[in-house]
């Protein structure tokens, strides 16, 4: 089942077209990485999905229910959201923030629920400091805990890694993976921290200038980025000629520093070819294509296409 399905989702703010005819699907159990530059329409899309903004055209169907978005009989949506900034009441303690939201959702044992969630995101339930004294990372964790209240089936997280130190980033990442694996929570994350996103996301969507330019799985991403072999030879020109003969399936690219980048064959094959042709090798390494570079390419492609709008 698709948890999110958008059909021609469009949002126009006066003259600016923030989201343009966006069709995307997020299946149940996905951790969907939503990637795009600043102002590309990520947050607006997420706001429309969770009902905080009304689409100018199109619709977002949630949990396969076009009428009620899969709302519970009590009238609560099954979504938890952390959009833009962590929505916290700075003059209250972290626990009070959570209890206030838990009471709004009609929960019994609000205090216990708050304590459990604070523990989950690595905050101290007995900390009596007001939230205004918290660091950005701590506020971010509290925002995540607020989004998790009510055990949502879908989490929408906009830049959840912002302001987190490496330890907190890891803790949040692991918490998200655990929620996904153990509780089956579908998660949609927008983030600029691509290496973190790459570690958790199972599917990706790239948005550029309000339009979805690509959607692919984690496996597809790594296939597309693929691995290559970097080889530095003592005599590059002669060596290239010999290797081309020995490896007819491979593609060669010369780097500015004189090294060769070989794609389409495994490291072992390149090594064997060098040995059999008697080419003197000074360096032989396997390298992955930079995922960040790939995403930047995709985001740039959308902008070029969108230039005519």
């Amino acid at each position, binding site marked *: 089942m698709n948890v999110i399905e958008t059909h021609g989702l469009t949002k126009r703010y006066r003259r600016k077209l923030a989201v343009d005819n966006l069709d995307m699907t997020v299946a149940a159990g996905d951790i969907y990485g939503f990637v795009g530059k600043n102002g590309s329409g990520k947050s607006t899309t997420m706001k429309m999905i969770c009902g905080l903004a009304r689409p100018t055209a199109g619709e977002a169907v949630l949990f396969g229910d076009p009428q*009620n978005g899969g709302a519970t009989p009590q009238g609560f949506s099954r979504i938890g959201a952390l959009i833009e900034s962590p*929505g*916290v009441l700075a003059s209250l303690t972290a626990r009070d923030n959570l209890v206030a939201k838990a009471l709004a959702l009609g929960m019994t044992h609000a205090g216990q629920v708050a304590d459990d969630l604070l523990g989950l995101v690595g905050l101290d339930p007995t900390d009596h400091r007001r939230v205004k004294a918290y660091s950005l990372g701590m506020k971010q964790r509290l925002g995540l805990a607020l989004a998790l209240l009510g055990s*949502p089936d879908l989490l929408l997280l906009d830049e959840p890694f912002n302001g987190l130190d490496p330890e907190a980033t890891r803790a949040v990442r692991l918490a998200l993976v655990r929620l996904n694996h153990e509780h089956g929570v579908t998660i949609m994350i927008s983030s600029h921290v691509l290496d973190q996103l790459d570690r958790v996301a199972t599917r990706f969507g790239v948005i550029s200038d309000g339009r979805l330019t690509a959607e692919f799985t984690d496996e597809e991403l790594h296939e597309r980025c693929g691995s290559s072999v970097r080889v530095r030879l003592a005599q590059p020109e002669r060596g290239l000629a010999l290797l081309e003969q020995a490896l007819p399936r491979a593609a060669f690219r010369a780097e500015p520093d004189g090294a060769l980048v070989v794609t389409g064959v495994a490291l072992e094959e390149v090594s064997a070819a060098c040995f059999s042709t008697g080419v003197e090798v000074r360096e032989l390494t396997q390298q992955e294509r930079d995922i960040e570079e790939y995403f930047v390419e995709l985001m740039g492609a959308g902008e070029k296409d969108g230039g005519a709008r």
Partner: protein
Amino acid sequence: MIALLRSDAYRVLHSRWIWGVVAIVTFLLFAPALMMRWTSMGPVFYDDLTSSALAMTGVQMLAAAMACIVCCDRTDIGFSRSILSSFCERGRTVWFAEKCVFSLALAAVLIVFTFVVGLLALLVSGVPVANPEPAWQVAAWLGCMWLCAAPYVALTVLVAHLTRSEGVTIGFAVLSSGGLLEGGIVIGIDALCYLAGGHFLDFSSAVAPWLPSQIAGIVGQGAAALLSTDNAEHLSAAVRALVVCLPLTVAVTAADALLVSRRDVA
């Protein structure tokens, strides 16, 4: 609605500003009473409770200002966003209505609190009341005080939700509950009538008895003035408060819930 009211009550009770308001109101009521007791410079006796013994002027303005704080907590938009994302469409409409209802309930609590603290201060001052009104008249007076504050409170919540600006909302709360906004609008209409060939002040003299600020002025004169029908309309100010303030409050609350909830939250 009940869950949302409980949540807002929890939020307000755990905020510092509400205790600041409690401290200020208590100080303002007790300080003169203590001065009177210690210096023996106060009146020999008060005529009655509602017109002279209990000073409750400015309660409307304070209620409107509190509504502004409730709806415009500096980071409230983010917190509201977090709550609203957990509600379906109908829940969002209820959320907007609840903000009005909670602010009105808070105004009622403020009026009752001010009354009780005022009574205690009266006891502390040691000044007797010559002719205290019967309890029903005092209750009617308190009810009308709330009725007069209600439209300003509801309008302040509406302005807060429309503008999402603390500055604009607090400005509106002060100007409207002080009667300046009403006065300005009425004078403006008078000027337009005059320019259109009518008589200046015709409009304002026709509508003045029905303006909430005018009714609030009469409430300030005490229960006897409030219930008196000795006026051009032959209607007591209490009835006029019911006729004007109650429908206005309901209409503003409905507009907030049904229209403002249809806007983008952020």
